[in-house]
């Protein structure tokens, strides 16, 4: 399996959110998408999820351009709440079960229970941490070939972080691509084997962690790449 982006660009109001980005990810890759706020990480994930379209370039999964056909193969956990106001955790699960044939409702129920989330309370009444856990439970309960998590370990407690890392690690196999956007580099590093570094919408570094880091830790590399940005 191959996720391939070629000269991908996306502009909003004349400003590039993503510019001329090219990369290739293969089955078995667990890729960290790194970069400061506004570097284009979420835009890239939305492009892969088919929530927005590129204004230039191409993106394809196994040669199939991102669209209706690829949506059944891509699971995406956005960073914001995206549920209808009437929805409870049960409703959200049923919605996923109705639309995604790879969604496992009983596994979802188990995750909701493990996260100590109320199944029948409206999602809009949950705390931000709890709704993050719910979004994770939804995405993790799919058996998709491409799984993307936008800041999955931000805003959740330490035990949930461990659980998320454990769940992501369990999904690492040759037939799957995992893409994780995060600012918590140290925690996420343990499950990843690749990384894409974005800055101002451009891909500034890409490769396996071994190639990129050498003797350094990923956190040190991050500081090296974005040191100038952070000072701004």
């Amino acid at each position, binding site marked *: 399996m191959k996720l391939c982006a070629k000269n991908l660009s996306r502009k909003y109001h004349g400003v590039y959110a993503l510019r001329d980005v090219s990369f290739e990810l293969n089955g078995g890759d667990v890729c960290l998408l790194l970069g400061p706020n506004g570097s284009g990480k979420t835009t890239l994930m939305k492009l892969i999820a088919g*929530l*927005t379209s590129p204004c230039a370039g191409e993106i394809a999964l196994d040669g199939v351009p991102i669209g209706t056909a690829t*949506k059944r193969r891509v699971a995406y956990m*956005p960073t914001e709440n*995206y549920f209808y106001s009437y929805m409870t955790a049960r409703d959200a699960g049923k919605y996923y079960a*109705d*639309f995604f044939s790879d969604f496992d409702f009983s596994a979802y129920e188990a995750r909701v229970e493990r996260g100590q989330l109320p199944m029948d309370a409206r999602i809009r009444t949950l705390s931000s941490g709890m709704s993050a856990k719910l979004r994770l439970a939804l995405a993790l309960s799919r058996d998709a070939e491409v799984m993307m998590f936008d800041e999955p370990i931000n805003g959740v407690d330490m035990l949930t972080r461990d659980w998320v890392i454990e769940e992501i690690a369990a999904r690492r196999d040759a037939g799957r691509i995992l893409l994780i956007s995060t600012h918590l580099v140290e925690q996420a590093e343990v499950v990843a084997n690749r990384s894409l570094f974005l800055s101002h919408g451009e891909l500034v570094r890409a490769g396996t962690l071994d190639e990129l880091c050498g003797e350094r830790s990923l956190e040190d590399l991050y500081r090296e790449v974005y040191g100038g940005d952070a000072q701004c």
Partner: protein
Amino acid sequence: MLTIIKYEFRKNRTSLLVMLLVAAGLFLLAPFGKALGKESLLALSTIFLFLYALAAFFYALTRGISAYSSELRGRTGYLLMMVPRSTMSILFGKLLFSLAFAALMLAVTALALGASATMAFAEMVEQTQQIEGFLNLIRYGLAQIGLSPAQLAATALCAAVEILGSILVIVGFSYLSVTLSATLLREGKLRGLVSALFFLALFALLAWLENRILPEVELYASYEEALLASLPASLLHIILTCACTAASAVLLQKKVSL
């Protein structure tokens, strides 16, 4: 598409229940009035139900469109666009929901209105004992303007088909206007205004096309003649609705950004 429609109804379940309860409440005024011997309540039930039927119909028509507009502005659009359904099927699902919701409200309120009006009419006949005289008056009025009841019914049928077609196009135009404004403006408070402007422009185009292409509504002698006469308008409306939905689907897929 059916799943999309199912979730549209689920989203609007509360509105639907409230609207049905209001219709039931207004209808109940009629039997209460009859039981209490107060004709004014009977008349009020009929009048309010008539006004409510119109309001409920237009509210139901616009409900789905305003929800779609919010989805394109907010994050709930993810739920819709993340699923493996083509934008065409999503938009047709939404369009059919708008029509089904409006038709449901119209059917329920019309039923309640019919029942209430029948009770009021029966009460009036009972009191005046003049049903024949009343019907004769209607026949006489129609004869005076050279119209038979069959002609009237056939012409009304033709007009109803054309009105239904216009409603279909208007819903299609609304979805296209909302999609166009979301294409041009990613965020901002002007989206509503831009949608309204697009809608007015499309509406003007429809009026122009209808004036150019369609024949004037005349008096028809039979239902067959009336249906045949409404065929060009129906075709035009169906073509325009499909074109609007297809254009919205392409824009949603290629241009709209959530």
